[in-house]
């Protein structure tokens, strides 16, 4: 029973896909089935709309989320009324989504349901906290489309990453893209002392001095970097902390600096990185270092060998190659 026991060490799990159709839902169903067999009480929630019966882009049939007796779930009013299982309403949240209020219910007899959830990670975080507070051992979050934000360690304790032929039918490209995200997920963490200091900062770009003290560089947006000549962003030291999103632009700017070998850039967590493989490679090659405040705990990588266009990879070969490249086990989601 691959990786399910690892999940039980945590209170919340997010399942995110690198692309649409990477088998996120199949993976979710696998996890739920195993947890049901282990008789672990579970709550299931999601962000955005998920579990569509047919894929909106490719119109393929999609597997639905299967929930078992005793499980608790959150979905929208609209999808609750369309559920194919027997359940009891426990709570209605006055928080409104495009599909109506969110309801919480407990499954009385097994069946299928479409999950749709809060539009923001903040609301999601509240739901997870609420479940934790009421003694729920594990909350699982299903992500919509290719949103990674819910895998932020500020939202969920651990994650499963789904990848597959939908990312690229070319196995080398698939490996290269998956490995890139894998590397970002596993970026090293800063020291606990610095983690503590920086976690209270909510915006801006900061310079860290030799004593580990942050100083606001007074740059409202990293988009303005390089425009105001003479502004030395390294006046406090070569370590910078970007509290918000980081794009290629900042990495490129840093990579072009004379002192790039000594530069360390700290970001909140990997979900704040909106960068391409090429730019990251250039940044690291020239000697730049990237760290995170908090690392996500990656439990497993799953692979869906079939792409929505019908192309099928050789599953055993793809898993072996990917596993070899990442030095971590990769599971075929269709056969676990």
């Amino acid at each position, binding site marked *: 029973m691959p990786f399910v026991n690892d999940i039980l060490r945590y209170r919340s799990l997010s399942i995110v896909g690198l692309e649409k159709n990477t088998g996120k839902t199949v993976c979710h169903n696998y996890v739920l089935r195993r947890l049901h067999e282990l008789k672990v009480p579970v709550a299931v929630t999601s962000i955005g709309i998920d579990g569509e019966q047919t894929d909106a882009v490719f119109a393929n049939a999609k597997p639905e989320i*299967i929930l078992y007796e005793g499980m608790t779930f959150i979905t929208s*009013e609209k999808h*609750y*009324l369309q559920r*194919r*299982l*027997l*359940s*009891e*309403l*426990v709570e*209605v949240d*006055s928080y409104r989504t495009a599909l109506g*209020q969110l*309801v919480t219910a*407990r499954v*009385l*007899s*097994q*069946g*299928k349901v479409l999950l749709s959830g809060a539009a923001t990670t903040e609301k999601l975080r509240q739901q997870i906290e609420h479940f934790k507070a009421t003694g729920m051992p594990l909350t699982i979050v299903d992500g919509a489309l290719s949103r990674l934000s819910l895998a932020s360690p500020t939202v969920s304790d651990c994650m499963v990453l789904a990848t597959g032929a939908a990312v690229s039918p070319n196995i080398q490209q698939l490996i290269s893209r998956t490995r890139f995200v894998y590397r970002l997920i596993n970026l090293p963490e800063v020291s606990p002392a610095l983690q503590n200091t920086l976690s209270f900062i909510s915006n801006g770009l900061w310079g860290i001095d030799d004593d580990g003290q942050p100083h606001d560089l007074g740059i409202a947006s990293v988009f303005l970097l390089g425009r105001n000549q003479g502004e030395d962003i390294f006046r406090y030291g070569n370590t910078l902390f970007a509290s918000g999103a980081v794009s290629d632009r900042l990495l490129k700017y840093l990579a072009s600096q004379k002192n790039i070998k000594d530069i360390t850039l700290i970001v909140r967590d990997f979900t704040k990185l909106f960068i391409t493989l090429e730019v990251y490679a250039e940044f690291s090659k020239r000697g730049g270092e990237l760290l995170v405040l908090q690392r996500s705990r990656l439990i497993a990588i799953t692979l869906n060998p079939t792409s929505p266009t019908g192309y099928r990879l050789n599953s055993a070969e793809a898993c072996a190659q990917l596993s070899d490249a990442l030095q971590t086990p990769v599971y075929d989601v269709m056969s676990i």
Partner: protein
Amino acid sequence: MTLKSKFKEAPGFQFVADSLELMSSAGKRRLLTQPWLNDAQALNREYDRIEEAILFLNDADATASINGVRHQLMQMHDIAGTLQSLHSHILLNEIELFEIKLFAKLYATAFRFLGEHNRQSLLATSEADLCAIADQAFSILDPDNTGMAHFYIYDSYDPRLAPLRKELKACNNEDADLFSQQEAIEREVILRLSDRLLPLALSLSEALNQMAELDLLLAKATLAKQWNLCRPQLCEAREGLSFLELSNPRLRHHNETLGLRYQPVDIDLHQGVCFITGANMAGKTVLLKTIGVAQLMAQFGMFVPARKARINLVDDVVLCIGDEQNEMKGLSSFASEIIKISNTLQRAHNEHLLVLIDEPARTTNPIEGKAIVQSLATILESKSSFSLITTHYSQLALPCRRLRVKGFVESMSSEPLTPQNINLFMDYSLLPDTTDDVPQEALRIASILDCDKEMLDTARNFL
């Protein structure tokens, strides 16, 4: 006229509304639609209720019950739409039935918490026994007597459900045929439930309004305690209105947060016009806003920010602060102001108003400006309204009452005077003013504020 419509007109009043700690969305809706009360009996009834609520909140033995009531309010959804659907024979769904069940439980629980201390009257404002109605609605939706506010179409609603669901369970709810049979039976059950709930719809709507009222009432009472508000005494027009130690809630809160001094003031007004003069920074504008906010609070059924207050009921409060330049409509500051003043004069012919005008006609030339003020005051003096006008114009030669803010008093504090602590040297109290002159302290204040020395010296030469 509802409370919400006053937010834009009266700066500082929204702060009061936002400070009310409402627990439910129904309570918030009730607040925003709170009507203007112009009837002494209705207002006194509301003030009586606030007093009773304060007694309840102050009862040390009732803490658990108070928290219990608040907890019910917090969980309450505004189900007005659902009850309307029920009343209009629109088929409800499971979620709506759940919401009715939950509401019925919350109402009955709140009622019982209040009953423990004999305060049911804070909630039940009518003769009807709505607690019995709520219990009845709950038991219709709780056929298995679980006592829980959970809900689904229980097997016990229809003898066909249990065997059907057993079959469905065996196939993991995957038999579409059986599933739609179940749905058909569930629809029948919902129809029957709606029929049973229909006669209760109007009473449940009333119960919802009562809960919203209770939420607002407890918020008003809590605020009255927090801010030491006082119950205004309502009196006849000829008796005028008066405030002892009146304070501006927003400014007071702001000053207290920063550890600054706040000085309440005493003021009384008679029918007709009263002029307020005083140096710059003497708090004249704040005084107008404060009186406006206090009158609004009183007539929206709240206690007021003073130690003692006698209020005269008016048809409306007109606050003309003059900072509402409207470039978008192509109006200059003078134009916006003069149009508002003109409209106010029109209304003063047949309405009993509280008119508060800050330095009228200050943005035009002083010769015509003064004439406008004289005309405005002459007309308002003959009306039944209460008018308070601040001005820097002197020699107005009018028989109106005049008050002057004491203003800058160097001996008030032993600290060295700086532009930041000028507030410490201001005495904001009001004195009757018998002269027709205004204080000329603009240059002195400007020099304390560290303004350009050359400008000040040159100005003195021109005097």
